[in-house]
């Protein structure tokens, strides 16, 4: 009895003293291994008489079971301590900066272009494009600007040097040449697949693009962006034009209470012609569209001039329609509050990140068109 008690006491002490897993293993082998002290005791059971075995068996087996349990318990404790030590060693200072990730953005003019395309697409318009370098016919003559007419001077046109044929190419002063390309049935196939080809009425397109005039100050830059609209059909009149633009303005400025005013104006390529003003409030230095008693000029529009239809081979006694054109950069400035047009084209990183839009702000009818 005494020797077993002594052995158990010694084993308990050794297990408790084992400082790490290898020391514990050594204790286990010394006690429970093939030649271990407890294993040796177990072997003695075979030589015992049944009565003796009946008495000693449970004592020795009990010793083995308790030793095994103690070792397992000690092992778990040692492992937990080791993990704690490892975790403590693995501590990182998470206030350190993470690797920098660049934050990009979409230019406000382009964001507004995408907004406008989304709004007009909802109204059944498709998108037509044309070249920036144009000829006199598409930019002026077909649009009812008579040769040498003073109206041409108002456009401050950029010209190229005359070519071998004496023809002087120019940078389009408006997106209206694409009206001509779209209506002219002979323009098939177009000079390049991306350029609008002639189509039969009914026509319902918008034309976004770069335009150019030789002008530079706070509200004029030598390059700017326009979106043109063209609708040709039977029986389309100025009332449709008014509805289209009012609907657009309300969606674009996200206001229910848009008030518009159409004023007579003159453009060679429309008759009757109009400019559209939008009711606004300028008090407090901030522009609010859709309320107040001031007017803000937004765009020019009108019914396509019969001479333009004729120049494109469309019979003005059968088809009629309207066209409008608006400055995209200016609309962007009005909506998002950029003060100086020139900044839009300067590529200043600080400006771009301040006025830019998230990549994921893609205008769509579900999450909003602006």
């Amino acid at each position, binding site marked *: 009895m005494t020797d077993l008690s002594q052995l158990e006491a010694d084993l308990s002490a050794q297990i408790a003293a084992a400082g790490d897993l290898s020391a514990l293993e050594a204790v286990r082998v010394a006690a429970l291994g093939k030649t271990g002290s407890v294993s040796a005791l177990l072997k003695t059971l075979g030589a015992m008489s049944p009565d003796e075995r009946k008495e000693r068996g449970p004592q020795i087996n009990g010793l083995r079971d308790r030793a095994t349990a103690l070792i397992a318990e000690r092992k778990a404790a040692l492992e937990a301590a080791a993990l704690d030590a490892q975790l403590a060693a693995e501590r990182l200072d998470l206030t350190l900066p993470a690797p920098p990730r660049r934050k990009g953005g979409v230019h406000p003019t382009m964001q507004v272009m995408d907004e406008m395309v989304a709004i007009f697409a909802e109204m059944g318009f498709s998108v037509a494009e044309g070249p920036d370098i144009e000829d006199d016919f598409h930019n002026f003559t077909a649009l009812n600007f008579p040769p040498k007419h003073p109206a041409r001077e108002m456009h401050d046109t950029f010209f190229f040097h005359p070519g071998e044929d004496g023809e002087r190419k120019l940078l389009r002063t408006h997106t209206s040449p694409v009206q001509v390309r779209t209506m002219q049935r002979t323009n098939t196939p177009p000079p390049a697949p991306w350029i609008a080809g002639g189509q039969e009425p009914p026509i319902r397109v918008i034309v976004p693009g770069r335009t150019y005039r030789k002008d530079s100050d706070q509200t004029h830059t030598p390059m700017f962006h326009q979106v043109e609209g063209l609708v040709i059909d039977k029986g389309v009149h100025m009332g449709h034009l008014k509805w289209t633009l009012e609907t657009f303005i309300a969606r674009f400025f996200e206001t229910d209470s848009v008030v518009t005013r159409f004023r*007579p104006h*003159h453009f060679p390529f429309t008759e009757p012609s109009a400019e559209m003003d939008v009711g606004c409030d300028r008090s407090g230095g901030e522009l609010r569209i859709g309320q107040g008693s001031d007017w803000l000029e937004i765009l020019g529009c009108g019914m396509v001039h019969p001479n333009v239809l004729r120049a494109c081979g469309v019979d003005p006694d059968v088809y009629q329609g309207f066209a409008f054109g608006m400055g995209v950069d200016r609309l962007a400035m009005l909506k998002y509050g950029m003060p100086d047009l020139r900044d839009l084209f300067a590529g200043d990183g600080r400006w771009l990140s301040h006025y830019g839009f998230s*990549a994921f702000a893609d205008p769509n009818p579900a999450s909003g068109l602006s």
Partner: protein
Amino acid sequence: MKFTLSWLKDHLETTASVDRIVEAMTMAGLEVEDVEDPATKLAAFSVAKIVEAVQHPNADRLRVCQVETRDGRKEIVCGAPNARAGLTTIYAPIGAYVPGLGVTLVEKPVRGVVSNGMMCSASELEVAEESDGILELPDSLAVGTSAAEALGLEAVIDFEVTPNRPDWLGVAGIARDLAAAGVGRLKDLSVQAVAGKFPCPVEIRLDGSDACPVFAGRLVRGVRNGPSPEWLQARLKAIGLRPISALVDITNLLSYDRARPLHVYDAAKLTGGFIEARLGREGEEVHALDGKTYAVTPDMCVIADAKGPLGLGGVMGGEDSGCSETTTDVFIESAWFDPLRTAQTGRVLGITSDAQYRFARGVDPGFVVPGLELATKLVLELCGGEASEVLVAGQIPAAPVPIEFDPNYVHRLSGLSVAREGVLEILHKLGFETKGDGASVVVTPPTWRRDVEGKADLVEEVARIAGYGALPSTPLPEVARAVGGVLTVRQARARVARRALAAAGYSEAVTWSFTARKTAELFGGGQDALVLANPIAAELDCMRPSILPNLIEAAGRNAKRGFADAALFEIGPVFGGDQPQDQRLAISAILAPHGPRRWDGAQAEDVFTIKADLIALLDELGAPTANLQVAQGAAAPWWHPGRSARLQLGPKAVIAEFGALHPAVLKALDVDGPVYGFEVFVETIPEPKRKPTKTKPALALSPLMPLSRDFAFVVAKDKAAGDLTKAVAGADKALIAAARVFDVYEGKGVEDGFKSLAVEVTIQPREATLTEAEIEALSAKIVAAAEKATGAKLRG
């Protein structure tokens, strides 16, 4: 163009306020730019009378005045020498802002005497540029009368005239439209002829060209030319014109009143007994009224006598033949000059006179003779003398052509509902004549409306007078929507690229389509056809062949402001020639990595960053990135020759170029490197095949585990890793899913001139797990293929 209310009332009977008139003008198509109303500006100022003026006790030059004012009797200190008892003048109370001084009056002692206001001079009220002493006004003016009224000042309306409406360049024309718009009643504009007392002694000759189809004139002899009367001077001054002499002022008056420019010649200074309008001759010169000498060309119309050109017809008169105070016989010219030629002459010579402005837009051909009669009447009234008979040379240009017009067309084109009688009434009020009472009428526009050429023009006339405010708002008919959206593949790709690059950390810029020619040349452009004849600035004289230089320069500007780290992109046109098909859409990005230093020692972004971003972008755009050839060293010369490549489907299908920019190019653009970039040519990316269904191909998932094997190859240093991996992957296309370099090593253990490339090959068993022998056989195929393609040997 400017006018005043009283001038308008010469032709329009109306009680309308300035605000009402401005509103009516705006809605009739006259864009009012500004209304300057002196009654508002000078509201604080009023008439006062000095009752007593005594010497200031402490100042020799000052007087202390007792003044009867609107606010009662005031003691005012005044320094003007003419401040005297009994003077009627203008008084400003404490608190008034004096525009000519730019100060607001405060109560303060002047040398010990408190001045309770101020008495004003003309310049202090900004009604004259200079003045001497305080205003001296008629005694008849009552104390308290407003300064604007006392000084006869009235609102000046400044407005913009569109080029189609030269008739609005005369006050009478505005009165006509306002009357039609219901603002008042138009007074009689007709002109009485003045009977001639003798034949005109000056012969008028024309050269038969289109420069001057008609020229009317007459002589008035025995005139006295001097300053014009007060009413005429005041009228001209009110709109910013300088009175000169009665004869000249009459021509200016009619220019602004009837849009009828005229010219007056001192008949004594004419040589040869005739005056002619003809085309200029080489070598001729005109000494014009502005004191400058202009060289004449055969494209210009001159007015000449026997000695040569006197002036530029319709543009500017000559100095030598003008009227002066000594003029006794005056020849009055009322001609009609060709608008295009007049515009051209003005443009070439840089002259924009009131006459040139009007003739270039086209004056009323029907008013050539009436204009002359009206001028004669005024000359006789203001300068005396007697008039000759009128001489008219040439033919008055044809009147506008009558238009067949169905009044219902107003509704069809504008959507406005205006009854037939309403349509006709508006046209009549605007001076149009109508004939017939059937479904269509024949409308003859007045001679001053040469812009009206067809039915649509008539609709505009009716619509703007009826009022655009009445336009209905009519929804567009619903149309079938394009299935799958309205954008073309190219348009949709631009939109996706914008979002993808912004998400990848690039900021979108929009830069000019032009650049400097020498910059364009650095990027393969600068051809003559793309150089602007009239650039806005020398450094913006050429269409850009690439977006890259603009982005690089933008990065350079940012760096000079202290923000060197840049990741920019732009989607826009680049130009290979001046034909429509030479314009291409490019997507370009640059990366100038100057990010913050890293505490963990991780590598900065480099050329492989831009490569990764480019491949990711091309994936988003649907380009077949797996099939793209990376043609190292084949990119254009503005790239670093050793660190750039083309991505192509074949030599003629270049989809993009990328790499580090050439240091010499960066130096020329004054930008510190390195700068990495790419340019994608959107049109080269194949468009997806149109398929009848949107269904994706079925997904085949192998139940067998892929395995990987590593190979270390030794290969000549100049061999491309891409060629090696391509050969490895091609060794057994059925089994090899991927081959990827994971280590590159040169140095100890590898022979000079060679490098070691470690390749991880992913093998995807197809039908059954591979046996060791099968894997050995595949490895042998891989090694053989690598050696065949690149001379690579397995590293020993």
